[in-house]
């Protein structure tokens, strides 16, 4: 099963092309998890999250100044290298300046038939955000209808909502197994489960999750779970890092980033006005720090996760130049410390210099548990 998740990620482009062949429907690329996939599923469009490939991006210099985050440059590099030449368009839900640049550079320099930017509000803590977003979503829905020439009915929206809710709900069930003393899945496996859900047909993903949930109760990992770690930060799909860290005698039992729990945590609560229901979900979801003010609600959420999953230590990673996340590092580390969770910060770039990181992570693990009895 987990092999399948991995396969899907490793061959994401072949998958999408085949899907297109098979269904005759369109594929839209999106950058940020603030894009309401519910509406895309309602329109029978396959949403594929555009992520990086972790090769040093050499082609983006002319379009994005290198002081913007590795993710936004790596994503654009994929487009410039033609790896997403099968998508019919792009859509972005406002999160940060970085990905907005990727969206615009893509719109301007890569042949794209459809490009839509949803101005998802930043002030998600104010009461007017949901009605406002509802209007923005109506605009998005209309844009899709005009483009596909097909009306999106309430029934369509209900279907979209059902699919997204189901997939997220099942993934949360899988997360439960990470709470056990000997977690039944590794952090890498979890990451691959969530990542794949962002790039494959969710109905297929759901079927696999259902099978997986039947097997998990009897699954046993043939490895020592070691130190219980949490990984916290912005977008993170660096699977090599996850693999390497877990090879040092630790298991990631929890996470707080948009390629993990932040993506799966909240469902759409049904409401007569479907767009309002969807808008509410994206306003009330675990927020990206760029939208999380004046209160630090995400930090409170991360602390709760750390407790619920009985975490010993947390690696706080930051995509270099990501200001929204960078700004929260000290308050976040303070909050975790106050509940007895030690943290260590790491700065991620397009490629991660494992040679340097290995020593830090190992030393961090040593300070957590390792050497007590040797003194």
């Amino acid at each position, binding site marked *: 099963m987990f092999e399948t998740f991995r396969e899907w990620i490793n061959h994401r482009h072949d998958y999408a092309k085949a899907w297109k062949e098979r269904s005759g429907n369109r594929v839209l690329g999106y950058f940020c998890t603030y894009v309401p996939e519910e509406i895309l599923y309602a329109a029978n469009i396959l949403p594929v999250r555009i992520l990086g490939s*972790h090769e*040093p991006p050499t*082609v983006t210099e002319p379009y994005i100044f290198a002081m913007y985050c590795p993710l936004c440059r790596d994503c654009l590099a994929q487009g410039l290298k033609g790896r997403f030449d099968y998508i019919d368009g792009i859509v972005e839900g406002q999160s940060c300046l970085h990905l907005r640049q990727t969206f615009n550079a893509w719109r301007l320099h890569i042949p794209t038939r459809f490009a839509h930017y949803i101005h998802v509000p930043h002030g998600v803590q104010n009461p007017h955000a949901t009605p406002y977003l509802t209007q923005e979503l109506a605009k998005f829905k209309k844009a899709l209808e005009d483009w596909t020439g097909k009306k999106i009915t309430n029934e369509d929206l209900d279907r979209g909502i059902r699919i997204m809710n189901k997939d997220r709900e099942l993934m949360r069930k899988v997360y439960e197994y990470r709470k056990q003393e000997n977690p039944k899945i590794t952090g890498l496996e979890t990451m691959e489960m969530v990542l794949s859900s962002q790039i494959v047909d969710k109905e297929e993903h759901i079927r696999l999750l259902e099978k997986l949930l039947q097997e998990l109760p009897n699954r046993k990992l043939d490895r020592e779970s070691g130190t219980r770690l949490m990984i916290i930060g912005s977008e993170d799909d660096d699977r090599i890092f996850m693999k390497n860290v877990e090879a040092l005698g630790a298991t990631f039992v929890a996470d707080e980033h948009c390629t993990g729990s932040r993506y799966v945590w909240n469902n759409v609560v049904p409401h007569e006005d479907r767009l309002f229901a969807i808008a509410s979900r994206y306003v009330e979801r675990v927020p990206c720090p760029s939208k999380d003010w004046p209160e630090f609600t995400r930090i409170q959420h991360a602390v709760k996760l750390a407790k619920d999953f009985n975490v010993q230590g947390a690696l706080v990673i930051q995509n270099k130049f990501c200001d929204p996340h960078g700004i929260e590092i000290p308050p976040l580390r303070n909050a975790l410390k106050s509940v007895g969770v030690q943290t260590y910060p790491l700065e991620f*770039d*397009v*490629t991660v*210099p494992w040679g340097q990181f290995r020593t830090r992570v190992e030393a961090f693990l040593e300070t957590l548990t390792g050497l007590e009895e040797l003194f």
Partner: protein
Amino acid sequence: MITAGVDVGAKYSKIVLLEDGKNILTRANGVVGFDVGKSAVEVFEKALVDANLKRDQISQIVATGMGRKIIHKNPPINAGEIVPEVIADAKGVFHLIPTVKTVIDVGAEEGRGVKVGEKGGVKDFVINERCAAGAGTFIETMARALEVRVEDMGPLALKSTNVIPMNAQCCVFAESEVVTLIHAKVSKEDVAKAIHDAMAGRIASMVLRVGVEKDVVLVGGVARNPGFIPPLKKELNAEILVPEYPEYTGALGAAIIAFEMEGQK
């Protein structure tokens, strides 16, 4: 009429004596010591001897390179004018290869990309900022970490076909990555290739800022490194032309500018 161009670089001074703005009489170079002026003069005199000329037989001298100011209006060389490297580069390469549109000059401590306009003028240019990972020193530093001679690096790299992405944020940290690769039992050939790939990547991403228009010409000391050309070619997906004496294009350009100055009189 005889003119001269002197390129006082970070490591070497290079000089070209030119006849009537086209025939190269002499090329000479020498290491730049702490006393830049002195080193430049030594090369200059060496060149005069080679060409068996006297200073006063040279109608005009133009200087370029980071040490150019020192010999500006300062005897015995007494250069009449100074021009920045990018200007001299464009001029010199245009003279050798009139179809050139893009010049890439990778010296010891600076990498440059120049977009060449008609008549060898500069349309746009870019120079590496704040980090040396895109310059000749990079290979040298890595050579030490690999314990091979600098001149062997290129040939070594050509022996490998594997692709190992290397994070070339910083020369020295790239070096520690090299150490990591060595510890991970990666062959010297592969590491050498990874190093050249990384550097080609740095240079390419910089040059892409000014855009890559054919013909693309690579000059500067690094142009003599065979290991550097294939990855650069791949990164830019363009043929890379290299003139016979790639480290002299700046001096040649300066000599041509000197000739043009005289012509205007």
